[in-house]
């Protein structure tokens, strides 16, 4: 047994400095990679929320998340306590400003006090300025959407609460009249929102008389679809102008080398 001892001693030799250094570096890099992935996953999760309304003049959400320094100067500037900073537990991008119109909507101050105080440009003064003057009417905080299933005006009950509450009444929300076939002698007075004028202030959502509002503001990106460049309103002179500068893209595929009619009719050649 005693012959084995020297072998054991050899195995217990102190670790060389070089090995120690390499192992430590590997450990550091490994821990950094692990921490980095966890951290990235966390950041990705907390910034994923898209269903929130930003103050007027906010730049697009991706840029907003990197530019907003979360100082709360816009929150302090807001005279109606509309704006809040997202707290831990709100499940919104932490520390960034937002508002809930059903609680307190944006009252669309003409001097827009929340925008010029922004130190980083996350709230862009230019985007709410026309001809050198601040203009809250061109703000795009969101877009009001009507759920015609729960809106009582669509049932035939007379209600124009949202229409009356709208600060750009007659432009952002109009009332459309149509005949109520059920009674045969009444009219529907349906509120219609127009995306080109609606700022997303949420006064309509605040005013809505239903238990859960039938008109509510969503971020424009969520509320709106996109037709794409390939549909043109032929009856609209301005829209048709897009054709003048359009370039033609021709794609050639295996099938289009021969005409489609040939491939269908010359069935004998296929087999």
């Amino acid at each position, binding site marked *: 047994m005693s012959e084995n001892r020297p072998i054991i001693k050899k195995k217990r030799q102190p670790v060389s400095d070089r090995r120690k250094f390499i192992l430590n570096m590997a450990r*550091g890099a490994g*821990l*950094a990679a692990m*921490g*980095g992935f966890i*951290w*990235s996953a*966390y*950041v*990705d999760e*907390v*910034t994923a929320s898209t269903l929130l309304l930003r103050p007027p003049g906010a730049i697009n959400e*991706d*840029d907003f*998340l*990197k*530019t907003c*320094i*979360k*100082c*709360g*100067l816009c*929150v*302090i500037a807001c005279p109606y306590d509309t704006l*809040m*900073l997202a*707290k*831990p*537990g*709100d499940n919104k*991008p*932490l*520390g960034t400003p937002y508002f809930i119109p059903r609680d307190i909507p944006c009252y669309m101050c003409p001097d827009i006090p929340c925008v010029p*105080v922004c*130190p*980083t*440009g996350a709230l862009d003064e230019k985007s709410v300025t026309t001809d050198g003057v601040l203009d809250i009417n061109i703000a795009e905080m969101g877009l009001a959407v009507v759920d015609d299933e729960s809106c009582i005006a669509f049932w035939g009950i007379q209600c124009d609460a949202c229409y009356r509450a709208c600060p750009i009444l007659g432009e952002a929300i109009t009332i459309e009249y149509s005949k109520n076939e059920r009674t045969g002698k009444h009219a529907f007075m349906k509120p219609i929102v127009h995306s080109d004028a609606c700022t997303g202030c949420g006064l309509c959502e605040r005013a809505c008389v239903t238990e859960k509002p039938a008109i509510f503001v969503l971020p424009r990106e969520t509320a709106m679809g996109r037709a794409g460049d390939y549909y043109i309103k032929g009856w609209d002179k301005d829209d048709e102008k897009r054709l003048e500068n359009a370039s033609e893209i021709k794609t050639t595929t295996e099938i289009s080398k021969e005409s489609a009619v040939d491939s269908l009719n010359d069935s004998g050649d296929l087999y």
Partner: protein
Amino acid sequence: MATLWNSYRYLILRRFTQVSLLVLYFGANAWGWTILMGNLSSSKVFEIIPLSDPYAALQMLAAGAVLAADLLIGVLILTLFYFIIGGRAFCSWVCPVNMITDSANFLRRKLDFDRVQGIKQPASRNIRYWVLALSLIISAVMGVTAFEFLSPISMVHRGIVFGLGFGWAAMLIIFLFDLFVLKNGWCGHICPLGGFYSILGKFSLIRVHHTQENCTLCMKCKVVCPERQVLHMIGKESLPVLMGECTNCARCIEVCDDDALGFSIRNLVKNKKTGE
């Protein structure tokens, strides 16, 4: 009374600064004061002078944001202040988390945790520089300010000024971590903002200076110091504390009964040394 003041004068001043900054920020949001508006990420003094967190701006830069002029001026003011004068003073004179970790440390000393756990710390104090580098890499890759969405400092401070939410949980986590897991765990090992200010304030003018002739080797300074490695010269050499990790908290100065530690200006210290 005089001795009490003598042995807690800087601690009282620090708490006064920390709390009054919080009160000023809180008053700006709650009662419309205009002395200091915003929070530690970015603020305005008297509605004119901008102040902005240079580390947050660095992350914004890494994330690819366009930096506005107001922000850059605010960053410049604070950078110059800490670079030339304050050193890492942010950590012990401004940051609200300091009060949490200081109380964890106080409890640790009172309960004699160090004797139970042993003095040897299981983690490197350089972790913060790794975290700092990592935060910039993640900011660049993910296109958001990585640490700002995680920072318990902002959570606590923003929480006190604008509403806390579950921010108290962040406070509790740090307190428990520092108390039970790692001594000076958050401020002395992990916090990348502390790491950032350690680098930025390395060459600042205000320094703690040690006079070896007066030292009686009682080591009270090393017991209270949150970054004890910076006091390597105690009892050995008359040197200023030059390491960037020193937070200028001055606890070492006030616990010293032998006048062996005191504040001085870096250049004067150098001149004295070469003059002698």
